């Protein structure tokens, strides 16, 4: 049987506010456990929440960026459940009257099509703390669990989509687009390894063409695009196996283990909590007026779609390059700094997508953590474009910049003797000398009629030529001179 895959996402986006959503504690990541949790975060008796205006501003900016209606009256509710890292015994969140109403995001797919994914709504809420899974022992040697409440109260927006995606590829493309939007807005640092964005995936299957949705499962807390893709593939296969064996899907929440490519049931619908939502009496409804929305609109930076169009227009990039370089706000800024100094946009794009990205990946660094600046890479691009260095030489310059050996491109070229010889006279002399020493190969070349083979044989002369020029001969010029001297 043929199946349609139906996917909806819920995405938790941590907002990059300085302080928590209902208290003045810092939201910075990585501090010693419980050093960023004050009396409010610890839910000490009598303490009360005070809303953080910036969290509302960021949520409204997000709403505007996804073409959504803004909820003019925003109401917080209490979602009641007991868990050790949930200090109040309820999460303050939104249900009936969220800050962001229906909207949509257009996603470019690899096949060139554009997919519209509708946003059902997005609401503001507080994050919980973390249970620490290391083992602690009390003075008597009893095992204990640790709770770190630094994260408790960090503002989140939970974005809920309609079930508009029909493959893992579409879901991942949407997720990446959303990542691109929130990082471009500057409302989220986008660092998925630190949990700044977390995905829950709702998946169901239905017979191809059917308009009746199947029973869905929810796979929770996926924190990388790769795991998300794997988890979807895994769950689709699991559901397909069950359905094709005549079984039924149970509505349940599942956990996916990316390292083992396994999933297990966390709880079924019958075991689901009754969260007993009700409006939080400690927080009055927040009214979002026209001025607040207009202020948020003024703060909107260039968004990924507009940036992509501009990159194509302004820098003459093709659709693919423009898409890759415009998606991540920091990468886009790096690219523009490189071009500003390096002029040649295509060359800058190639270097950023090639050597630069490969190096970041290899060292698991973000653009922000790059040891080299766009200006430095731009200087290098200039020297590649004007033939001062060969691409092989340029890689050595890049290496020296990356390791911090020296921060000036020209100084590195001088110090390492990487300057290409482009003086035609000198190069011709070298070619003459090398060809004189290789008479057999010259004869072989000249007897060969297949142009492809001839082209390949040309490479046999390049090695000795580069050696003769101590690696400094301009390979492109060498090539031209060779062809001429060998008679085509």
């Amino acid at each position: 049987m043929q199946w349609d895959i139906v996917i909806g996402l819920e995405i938790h986006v941590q907002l990059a506010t300085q302080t928590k959503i209902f208290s003045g504690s810092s939201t910075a990541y990585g501090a010693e456990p419980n050093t960023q949790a004050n009396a409010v975060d610890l839910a000490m008796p009598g303490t009360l929440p005070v809303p953080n205006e910036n969290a509302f501003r960021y949520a409204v900016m997000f709403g505007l960026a996804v073409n959504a209606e803004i909820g003019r009256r925003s109401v917080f509710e209490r979602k009641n459940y007991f868990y050790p890292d949930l200090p109040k015994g309820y999460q303050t969140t939104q249900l009936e009257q969220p800050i962001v109403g229906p909207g949509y995001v257009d996603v470019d797919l690899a096949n060139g099509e554009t997919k519209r994914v509708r946003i059902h709504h997005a609401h503001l809420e507080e994050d919980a703390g973390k249970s620490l899974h290391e083992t602690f022992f009390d003075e008597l040697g009893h095992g204990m669990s640790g709770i770190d409440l630094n994260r408790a109260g960090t503002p989140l927006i939970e974005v809920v989509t309609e079930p508009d995606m029909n493959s893992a590829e579409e879901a991942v493309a949407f997720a990446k687009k959303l990542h691109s939007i929130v990082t471009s807005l500057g409302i989220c640092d986008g660092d998925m390894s630190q949990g700044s964005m977390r995905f829950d995936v709702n998946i169901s299957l239905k017979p191809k063409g059917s308009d009746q949705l199947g029973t869905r499962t929810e796979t929770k807390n996926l924190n990388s695009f790769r795991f998300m893709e794997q988890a979807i593939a895994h769950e689709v296969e699991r559901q397909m196996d069950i359905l094709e064996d005549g079984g039924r899907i149970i509505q349940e929440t599942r956990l996916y283990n990316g390292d083992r490519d396994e999933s297990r049931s966390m709880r079924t619908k019958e075991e689901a909590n009754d969260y007993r939502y009700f409006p939080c009496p400690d927080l009055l409804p927040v009214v979002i007026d026209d001025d607040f929305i207009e202020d948020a609109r003024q703060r909107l930076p260039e968004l990924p779609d507009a940036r992509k169009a501009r990159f194509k227009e302004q820098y003459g990039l093709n659709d693919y390059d423009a898409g890759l370089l415009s998606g991540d706000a920091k990468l886009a800024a790096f690219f523009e700094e490189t071009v500003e100094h390096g002029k040649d946009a295509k060359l800058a794009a190639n270097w950023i997508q090639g050597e630069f990205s490969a190096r970041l990946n290899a060292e698991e660094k973000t653009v922000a953590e790059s040891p080299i600046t766009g200006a430095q890479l731009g200087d290098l691009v200039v020297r590649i474009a004007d033939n001062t260095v060969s691409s092989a030489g340029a890689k050595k310059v890049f290496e020296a910049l990356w390791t911090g050996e020296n921060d000036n491109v020209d100084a590195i070229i001088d110090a390492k003797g990487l300057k290409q010889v482009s003086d035609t006279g000198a190069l011709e002399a070298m070619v003459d000398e090398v060809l004189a020493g290789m008479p057999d190969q010259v004869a072989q070349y000249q007897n060969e009629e297949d142009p492809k083979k001839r082209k390949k044989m040309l490479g046999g002369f390049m090695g000795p030529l580069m050696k003769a020029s101590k690696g400094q001969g301009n390979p492109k010029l060498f090539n031209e001179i060779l062809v001429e001297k060998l008679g085509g």
Partner: protein
Amino acid sequence: MHNKSVAELSRELESGKISSVELTQQFLDRLKQEDGKYNSFITITEEQALAEAKAADELRAAGKATAWTGVPFAHKDIFCTNGVRTTCGSKMLENFVPPYDATVTEKFRQAGAVCLGKTNMDEFAMGSSNESSYFGAVTNPWGLSSGEKRVPGGSSGGSAAAVAARLVPAATATDTGGSIRQPAALCGVTGLKPTYGRVSRYGMIAFASSLDQGGSMARTAEDNALMLNVMAGFDPKDSTSIDREVPDYTATLNEPLKGLKIGLPKEYFTDQLSPAMEEQVRNAVKEYEKLGATVKEVSLPNAKLAIAAYYVIAPAEASANLSRFDGVRYGYRCEDPKDLMDMYTRTRAEGFGAEVKRRILVGTYALSHGYYDAYYLKAQKVRRLIQQDFANAFKEVDVLMSPTSPSPAFVQGEKTNDPVTMYLEDIFTIAINLAGLPAMSVPAGFVDGLPVGLQIIGDYFAEARLLNAAHQFQQVTDWHQREPK
């Protein structure tokens, strides 16, 4: 000295006849000697009080005294006090020492007042008789001579008994459904529940957040005005507090009452009220007529729904507010929990008393899937109707008057096995909390030797008018000066 009001003590200190240290020591000695009879205090903070008194004397010497500098008083044990244990009348918080002050606590500190300790209360403010306290019932100073131990009312029964017994001239209190006014009435003292949002709730341990309001208890209306002068005001730490100017509440105490329009809600003068109680209340209203006020009957048609709506909304909010008492971070934790669920269930089963558990269960039920619309939403609709009733009444009159409680102080144990009868104690007070209005209870006579309270209800932020009306009444009556034997 123990018979003097805050205003009088303030003048004594100002005149230099007595120092705060001397005064505080006198009150502490009396408190330690007398409170065995009443159990009105959970914690007496002798050392801190004497230190505060010393600091107050220094402030006064430096010419920086306020009306409160060096005057002894007490806090209901629901207000968090930095470094002093705050129990809320519960085993759950028996050893809880907050590392912060409630905003109200902080304000009294800044005013230089001397806190003698923390007064007893129903556990988590849930009760109308002060019998649900983990630290034992409080005994009303009235009626003791007859040999029967009577309740002081609740939940602020400790504050009311302490003021009535002259252990302190004034005490803070809180009121969610009548917890200031009903004990004030039963103990023959004057109490004020301000407009919701007038006094910060920060650091005041929550029972039902949309109803809780901090207020005052003292023997005179004037002292209540002095207390509200300290307590009232916007607090950026409480999103529900209201940013509105705070008048000097003592400035208008002596305004004449001529032309004051009094409304008597007919629903509050029914056969639920004994003829003897009603007579006292009507006599008090006659005093007001003598002072130039006019009286008319008004109607609050939805008042009869108040108890039912309250016992959905208050427990619903409480069920969430009390979830934080889970044994994880502070407070009571059961011995040797074998796993997480065991820790939760035993901590809460052992740490909370019966009435608290009853209300958590009621509230949890009311919010449950499938019941929410029928209970919680319906109760909120009733709440709006009740607000509208009061709004209509205040189009016709300036204040409403009624009895504060249906009967005077009852004997301990009389109603403990019948929660619904106990809940009816607040039949005249609860609607005011649902509407968020200010109200007072003022001593207005005696039935069988036990005090009767007159409830005066005002429109939003009409505290000054209420205090003025109460003060003028106290100029022509002496019910508030009577001392229990």
